[in-house]
């Protein structure tokens, strides 16, 4: 593999890893703070992608679609938490698994009723629809670089939100000790709503920015969901930093696995997880 090729794969793995991080961060936060295992998290990714497709067609601009779609997704997450999830924080994990599995069915069917079962494509915005030439034959699409850039900005934003703001302090306190936080007069219900809506928003944004490169299709949530589980298991449940490291690691292993050992590419990531489990059953960054 020459350098240009290597660089392309490296950038691809970075982009994939960062995208996974967007999803896994929400998943791990929702678990870490509310103790809910959410199988429907992949559906929010799908929701984002479909919103991007729908509004790009309506508004003729991906950027506007992302703005409107994010607002809708956050509102939807807030509503879902208020109407359903908050009643399940103290329930058994088993009930949570079933609840969210039932939701997958419902989301898929609602999607099918409103938007049909066809595969759709979303156009890359004109401004970003060009490539940086690396050699005579190889080039790298700018849109993918912008994607990674957006993910990095959001990751930094998330870090600042959690570690540098008053709200973030309350979120951390809520994760650490719920009852104590509540007795100090903090509205923990509000915090839960914010965290859940944040998780849904991040997943939907991931779906929206990924829509132009991955096409929009039914069931696109479930494959990405399982990858997110792997990321969260490797990183350690509840740890956002762990999710970032694990997501980048998974991105690397998956991308280079496909190039170097295509026969077992589908399994490479799971082998990584098996190795981590053997030595660190609670993940690389135990919360």
């Amino acid at each position, binding site marked *: 593999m020459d350098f240009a090729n290597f660089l392309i794969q490296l950038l691809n793995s970075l982009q994939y890893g960062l995208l996974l991080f967007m999803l896994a961060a929400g998943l791990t936060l929702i*678990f870490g703070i509310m*103790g809910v*295992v959410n*199988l429907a998290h992949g559906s929010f990714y799908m929701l984002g992608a479909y919103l991007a497709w729908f509004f790009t067609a309506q508004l003729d601009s991906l950027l506007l679609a992302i703005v409107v779609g994010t607002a809708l997704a956050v509102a939807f997450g807030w509503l879902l938490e208020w109407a359903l999830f908050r009643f399940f924080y103290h*329930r*058994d*994990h*088993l*009930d949570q*698994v*079933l*609840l969210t*599995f*039932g*939701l*997958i*069915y*419902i*989301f*898929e*069917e*609602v999607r*099918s*009723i409103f938007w049909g079962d066809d595969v759709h494509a979303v156009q890359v915005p004109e401004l970003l629809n060009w490539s940086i030439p690396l050699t005579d034959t190889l080039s790298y699409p700018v849109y993918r670089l912008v994607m990674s850039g957006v993910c990095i900005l959001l990751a930094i934003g998330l870090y600042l939100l959690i570690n540098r703001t008053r709200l973030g302090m309350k979120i951390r306190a809520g994760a650490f000790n719920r009852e104590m936080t509540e007795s100090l007069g903090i509205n923990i219900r509000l915090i839960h709503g914010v965290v859940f809506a944040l998780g849904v928003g991040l997943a939907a944004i991931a779906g929206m920015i990924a829509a132009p490169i991955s096409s929009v299709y039914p069931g696109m949530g*479930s494959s990405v969901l*399982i990858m997110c*589980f*792997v990321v*969260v*298991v490797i990183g350690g*449940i509840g740890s956002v930093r762990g999710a970032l490291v694990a997501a980048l690691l998974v991105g690397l292993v998956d991308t280079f696995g496909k190039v170097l050992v295509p*026969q077992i*590419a*589908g*399994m490479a990531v*799971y*082998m990584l*997880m*098996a190795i981590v*489990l*053997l030595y660190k*059953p*609670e993940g690389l960054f135990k919360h």
Partner: protein
Amino acid sequence: MSSPTATLERLPRSMQAMLVIGAVALAAFPLVPIEGTDFYLQMLTQMMILAIFAMSLDLLQGVTGLVSLGHAAFFGIAGYALAFLTPQDAPMALWWSLPAAVLAAAVAALVIGFLVVRTKGIYFIMVTMAFAQMVYFLFFDNKALGGSDGIYVYFRPDATAVGLDLENKTSFYYFTLVLLVAVYLFLRRVLFSPFGRVLTGIRVNEHRLRAVGYGTFNYKLAAFTLAGALAGLAGYLWAAQTGFVNPELMGFHMSAHAIMMVILGGMGNFAGAIVGAFAFEYVMHFFKDLTKHWQLLMGGFILLVVIVAPRGLLGLGESLLGRGRKDTTEASE
């Protein structure tokens, strides 16, 4: 987070009687001359196979308190084992293809179990799901293993040595029924054996059990392997009955459906798993016949069960019968 509680570990007389009546009704069904018997025979056979599958999961989920979201992997592996063992031009003897398939599932469960039973709670759920997905992709991605299309099982296993023709639908039905009853009785014995008591103890309080000197890792691994082997038995029967295997047999939906069956019936007593498997399949068929938007109804149904009857149909039946006593396991804790 509390560990899942079992429903009715010791079944009341009335429910035992209902089970016997159910078994007799199943045994008598092929004798009733009604329209479309063939269709119903096949449907009931599938339900019985799924009941075996659900019972195998109940050993983990209801008894040991380990919620596996990857149990279908072992179901599928045994099914594939039969598919690989059966040549295109002749049937394969039951007497060694069945043990071979069950062994394949058991070995897979032992290897995966070695990695997963060191995790707990939510980790266990995620990790079992991820490993099942790994197995899924192994078969999905490799053309040599059938790829995404799956493979045919050209003949049902051959048991003519004891005068059993499994190609005959009725014979296969009775063969499955006998295995269903056998697995049920076996698992009930296991439940009240010293081994089963330890598994129950792991669900109720694993720390305490470790403190009194049980190496719970080995017990959990043994339970995982046994459950995998029995899931393999169900998968073998499934492949023999449908004559076809594909990666969906080990998919995420199959595993989640098994969890749903166990919950729907009531966990931790195996009878509930049987009731749940029949009820779940019935509801699924009913919704699919009703509308093409069956997923919406199914999702709604699952939500309803979780919200209204988390202890399952048996638990619901018990409350309705006015025997709303406290859970037996809690009382004996």
